């Protein structure tokens, strides 16, 4: 048994090696590209399905600078895509060539045919019995036996046939003769051990003496320099970004601000913009500019002020700011601070709509509005879109200071297409249970109606229960959040001042009413049908609600918010404030209190039985309380612990809560 290492002189192995490497890279890349094509098409389709007057208007009202910025970003992206496509095509061409090469390479073919397989040679299956083997051998030996060959064969044909006969005989022996059989089993060949070769999959020209130094240097470069370089770069990159996609320095800065935040301070837009302007991302994007400049530029964006030569820089900052604000929001919610979380989202609205946070933001975010005549002109104090639509068109024109009728109509179109959420039903739901049982895993299930400010108001009770039922099949029990994905994606936002097309989302915050603090990181809602916004259910024309309202005309949306902790172990009512805030538009966001009634399942059935008695009891309680309502403001009930002031933070009884929750 000899062992030898030889190089791939006949080019037998290296094509396989290259082929394997190429496939490892190309297959996932191609799959990714195809998937993107398919899902991208789906996404476009989704967007087209959704009412897109806002997107169209957004393009129409965008300034040339904004459009240019968007186009440039698009070009950058498509360039990268083109490069990737080119690589994929080139890769597959090489693969095709290699396959062709392997097919036509004799050495490879020979290597393949040299393998000895007695079963193929005798043309029998591996499960054949001795008798079958014998008969197959006899049949073939008759055909190829040198004595039985016809005389008119050429010498070459004769020698082929003779070779074949030897092989058949060997094969037969391998399967019947004891010694040959052992040889075959042990070494894979009836003649005993064959020479094994350990090849190195490199073509010959690379290992010729002249190129070998280069080869060694290449290996050193690959293993000693290039590989460590890429690994270290990848490592430092993962270390420099948080999981939420912001720079660690920005994250540290935001956390410091939250940590040092004095609860006596009022959270304002200016404060958040100031924090934002310290982001490391901005420094990396524009090393020549300072923090003050960033702050001014962000204020310019909010106040729709042109920044002169720094206009492109401003758009760059603004485009980046939404990732940063989401990073800040995550940190603020982890620090449980409601004011900062709320203002972070409001700041995002202000930057997207280029409208400062003020009592009149809802109206000032609309296009063509004359701020001066809005604030000074009107006699009635109108601050909301809903209120605006109680007036006729001409009066609205006067209120907003829009003289041109086409412009007014466009403004009204946008105003009526801004989505408002209306709560239809809300509950804590445990899949497969009728109540929230102690220590179960509930989620918050909301039924909402996406409506226009123009629509006539109707109570949630007009929507029958049947329309608010979730499917109760096995799949929805297993994953109650799967049904959300059936809803279409949100369409493009009307944001003519924002550098980039965006569709945004709603952020759902959950607050514990006991201490007024956020209890979990925000949930983002990016799927809801906007179909209702197409309806003309104008509050100025609909007179008879009973007659004109048909619940089946309306699409009910579903929002499900995972609850980050199990239900409390003890029975009782626990109150949570749920805030569902749009990141795109100023408008009445959803903000309501939801009770989690934790009950034992058996107990509920009992309670249902004596439901009537329970109801009347609670009414009695009310009247009792009214009398002694005034009396509880004396000092005697001051046993609350003072830890909240301890540290000049607003953490009332945090420790207690934590202890309670962990129980």
């Amino acid at each position: 048994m000899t062992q030898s290492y030889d190089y791939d002189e006949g080019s037998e192995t290296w094509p396989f090696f290259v082929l394997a490497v190429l496939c490892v890279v190309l297959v996932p890349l191609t799959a990714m590209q195809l998937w993107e094509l398919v899902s991208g098409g789906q996404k476009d389709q989704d967007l087209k399905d959704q009412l897109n007057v806002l997107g169209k208007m957004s393009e129409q009202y965008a300034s040339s600078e904004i459009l240019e910025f968007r186009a440039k970003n698009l070009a950058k992206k498509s360039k990268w895509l083109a490069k990737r496509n080119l690589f994929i095509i080139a890769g597959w061409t090489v693969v095709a060539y290699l396959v062709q090469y392997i097919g036509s390479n004799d050495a490879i073919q020979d290597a393949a045919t040299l393998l000895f397989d007695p079963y193929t040679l005798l043309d029998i299956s591996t499960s054949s019995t001795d008798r079958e083997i014998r008969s197959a051998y006899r049949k073939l030996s008759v055909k190829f036996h040198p004595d039985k060959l016809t005389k008119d064969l050429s010498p070459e044909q004769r020698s082929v046939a003779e070779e074949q006969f030897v092989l058949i005989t060997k094969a037969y022996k391998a399967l019947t003769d004891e010694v040959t059989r052992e040889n075959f089993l042990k070494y894979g060949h009836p003649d005993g051990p064959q020479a094994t070769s350990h090849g190195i999959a490199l073509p010959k020209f690379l290992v010729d003496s002249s190129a070998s130094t280069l080869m060694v240097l290449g290996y050193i470069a690959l293993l000693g320099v290039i590989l460590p370089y890429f690994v270290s770069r990848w490592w430092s990159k993962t270390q420099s970004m948080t999981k939420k996609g912001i720079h660690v320095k920005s994250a540290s800065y935001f956390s410091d601000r939250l940590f040092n935040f004095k609860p006596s301070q009022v959270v304002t837009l200016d404060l958040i913009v100031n924090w934002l302007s310290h982001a490391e991302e901005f420094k990396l994007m524009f090393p020549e500019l300072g923090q003050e400049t960033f702050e001014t530029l962000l204020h310019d964006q909010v106040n729709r002020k042109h920044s002169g030569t720094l206009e492109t820089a401003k758009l760059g900052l603004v485009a980046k700011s939404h990732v940063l604000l989401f990073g800040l929001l995550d940190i603020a919610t982890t620090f449980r601070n409601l004011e900062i979380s709320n203002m972070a989202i409001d700041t995002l609205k202000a930057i997207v709509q280029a409208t400062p946070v003020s009592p009149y933001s809802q109206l000032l975010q609309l296009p063509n509005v004359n701020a001066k005549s809005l604030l000074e002109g009107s006699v009635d104090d109108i601050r909301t879109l809903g209120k605006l639509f109680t007036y006729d068109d001409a009066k609205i024109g006067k209120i907003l200071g829009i003289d041109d009728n086409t412009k007014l109509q466009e403004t009204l179109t946008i105003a009526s297409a801004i989505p408002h959420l209306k709560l239809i039903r809300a509950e804590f739901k445990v899949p497969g249970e009728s109540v929230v049982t102690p220590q179960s895993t509930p989620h918050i299930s909301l039924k909402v109606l996406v409506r226009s400010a123009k629509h006539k108001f109707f109570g949630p009770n007009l929507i029958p229960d049947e329309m608010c039922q979730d499917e109760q099949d096995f799949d929805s029990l297993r994953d109650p959040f799967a049904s959300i994905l059936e809803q279409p994606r949100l369409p493009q936002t009307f944001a003519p001042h924002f550098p980039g097309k965006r569709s945004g989302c709603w952020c759902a915050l959950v607050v514990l009413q006991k201490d007024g603090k956020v209890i979990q990181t925000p949930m983002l809602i990016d799927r809801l049908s906007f179909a209702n916004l197409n309806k003309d259910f104008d509050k100025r024309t609909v007179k008879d609600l009973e007659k004109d309202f048909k619940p089946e005309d309306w699409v009910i949306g579903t929002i499900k918010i995972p609850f980050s902790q199990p239900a409390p172990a003890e029975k009782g009512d626990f109150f949570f404030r749920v805030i569902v805030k749009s990141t795109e538009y100023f408008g009445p966001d959803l903000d309501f209190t939801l009770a989690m009634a934790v009950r034992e399942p058996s107990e509920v059935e009992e309670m249902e039985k004596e439901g009537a008695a329970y109801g009347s009891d609670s009414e009695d309680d009310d009247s009792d309380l009214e009398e002694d309502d005034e009396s509880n403001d004396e000092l005697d009930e001051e046993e609350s612990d003072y830890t909240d002031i301890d540290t000049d933070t607003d953490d009332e009884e945090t420790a207690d809560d934590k202890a309670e929750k962990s129980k």
Partner: protein
Amino acid sequence: MSFNNTQYNSTFAEDDAGTVEMKAVSFYTPLIYVSILVISLTVFASHYRKKTVKELSELPSMFDESVARDLYFELKQMNDTGDAKVHEKVLKAALLNRGAEAIRRTLKLKESEPQVTMLYKNGCVGEEYWKRYQNEVKLVDLEFKDAIQEAERLQPGWPQLYVAVSKEICFNQALKRRFQAILLRKEVFSEQWQLKFDSTGKLIE
């Protein structure tokens, strides 16, 4: 397997036997080799430790400022160098202020622990922030102990009362800060809600 091994070994031995060549190696060679190894490892370890300590000491504090502490040392230095004779009660006042702040920081760090841990676990902040937090916990502990030692120095036998009094001061100062913030808050909210008030505080509609 064993068959293969012996086979391999024997071939190897045979090959070797053919080309064997004796080289004179000094007795010290292995010693030098080992000592170089040990020395280089030691140097690396100590260097690494120093670097880590330096990095830790260079981490910025979790708190924005350290005014309470610095004011005390500034006054003490003023007194010690003889620039000005600082009254003992002023030094005491500065030390009480420092103690109160140290207590506030201890409580604040303890209170923020779950939040900071969660931030780190969720990957909202980097490794460095976590190190800073753990560093700060130790530093604040040292700072408070140092303040107590100073109290003993200023007035022997005082520390126990000093700690009790500092606690009250800490809470009362926080209360006062909130009380004093009321005025500014009124202004900020009036501006945010665009409300105008007359001189008696009534809303102008």
